[in-house]
């Protein structure tokens, strides 16, 4: 399988503060990748570069062979940490909006999932709770038949039951052969789903490994995380 993500000598700084320094890695498609690191390690900046939100960086970034831009955005389904839908929209408007722009968006599946998620189709987004908005955003992302899913901290700030629901939704709805890049600083709940992991800290790649290799070495991802980042970091 060809490389879905390829990053070479990536550097990104905000003024004098360097958030990514000489980052290089690549992943083949068709796997679930954990992007792990404590808060402030550069995960979100890396994701913003991969999704084409940040352009002023040096180095080479390729998504399925193309530089981040309009072409790659059609292949990438991105779930940011923030709630990003317009206030005036209702669930139905959001679904129609996504269907308008993404050829790979499955409208029929979206309406079915609205029902499953118990989201009122005609309720305005601004009147929804944060949890409902997050559910809707997850639905919009997982109803795409994308090549790459980039999920930025989808498990942050939610209770354990919601975490299980989110993971279940992701696992059941991503198409076969697609790749998921899931960033998190909460290891315990998710380590079982990963095929590979990328640990970054202080703007550098600290570990890139297949989970099978970690397990073969008699460790868990959580063990490795603690080993790399130290016990001072919150891991759960």
């Amino acid at each position, binding site marked *: 399988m060809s490389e879905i993500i390829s990053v070479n000598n990536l550097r990104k700084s905000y003024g004098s503060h360097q958030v990514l320094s000489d980052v290089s890695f690549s992943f083949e498609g068709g796997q679930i990748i954990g992007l792990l690191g404590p808060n402030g390690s550069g995960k979100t900046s890396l994701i913003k570069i991969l999704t*084409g939100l940040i*352009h002023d960086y040096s180095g080479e970034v390729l998504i399925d062979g193309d530089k981040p831009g309009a072409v790659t955005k059609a292949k990438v389904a*991105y779930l940011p940490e*923030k709630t*990003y839908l*317009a206030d005036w929209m209702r669930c139905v408007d959001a679904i129609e909006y996504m269907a308008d*722009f993404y050829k790979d968006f499955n409208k029929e599946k979206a309406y079915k999932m609205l029902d499953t998620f118990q989201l009122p189709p005609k309720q305005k987004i601004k009147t929804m709770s944060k949890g409902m908005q997050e559910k809707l955003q997850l639905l919009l992302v997982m109803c795409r038949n994308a090549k790459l899913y980039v999920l930025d901290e989808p498990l942050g700030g939610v209770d354990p039951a919601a975490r299980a629901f989110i993971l279940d939704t992701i696992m059941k709805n991503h198409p076969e052969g697609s790749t998921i890049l899931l960033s998190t600083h909460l290891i315990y709940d998710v380590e079982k789903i990963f095929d590979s992991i990328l640990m970054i800290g202080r703007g550098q790649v600290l570990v890139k490994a297949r989970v099978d290799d970690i397990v073969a070495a008699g460790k868990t991802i959580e063990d490795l995380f603690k080993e790399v980042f130290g016990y001072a970091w919150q891991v759960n």
Partner: protein
Amino acid sequence: MLGKLIKNEFKANIHTIGMIYVVAAAAVALMLLSYLVDVTWISAVSTIVLIATGILAVVMTFVSVVTNFKKTLYGSQGYLSFTLPVTSGQLLAAKTITSFCWMLLSYVVAIGIFVGVYLYATAMIGEDVKMALKMMAAMFEGLPDGTTVKTVIALLALVIFVRIVVLIAQLYFAITLANTRTLQKLGGFATVVIFFAVFIVMQVIGVVLAQYVPFSIVVTGDGIFYSTVSTMANPVGLSFGLAGTIFNVFAAAGLFWATAKIMNTKVNIK
């Protein structure tokens, strides 16, 4: 994709700007009703509402154009806008086209309301509406023929179109530059300062060009002719400065180009 962007822009704007036109339509209906039933207080209220609506249409459209651009690109909605499979140029073009349409509509509605209220008031105080219309047409009576009238209307429309495009370009450039990492901490203040700086510089250049490159189309009772003499000190008829208009067109294009460039490279979505 541009068509889809424009469609969704209109859909988004209709929730804010559209409301003012609903109020205007209601006020017009109320006004017509008052004319039919001849109730003074309804007539007074609807006239006031209509005049206020005319002013509000322009003001609210302006505010909406600014807030919509800022919110949908540089606020949290930017995460959606900038991850759509479109280029920054397409995003900018869609927003410019829709803002242009709304601004033009607001001007047309405002002018329509003021003319309508004038005619209505004329009718209410028992004066001849036909006479009032003739007085309005008298503005063009000095012009020699129908072709000249059409030319003047076309030139006026062109000037208004260019002015709206320039205003949008200045606003978008100011908002975008103010949302770069360095200026972001200054908030809305940076937008205001940049906007007025660009506006003043362009005005000064326009005046200088009118003085030193005085190519213009002048319309008088004798017809239309080209002038290469400055008419600033001694205005004759209606003068349309060509150098200033051409400069505005190029400046607007430059501002749009710079805006797209900054959107692509320097903007920081919060």
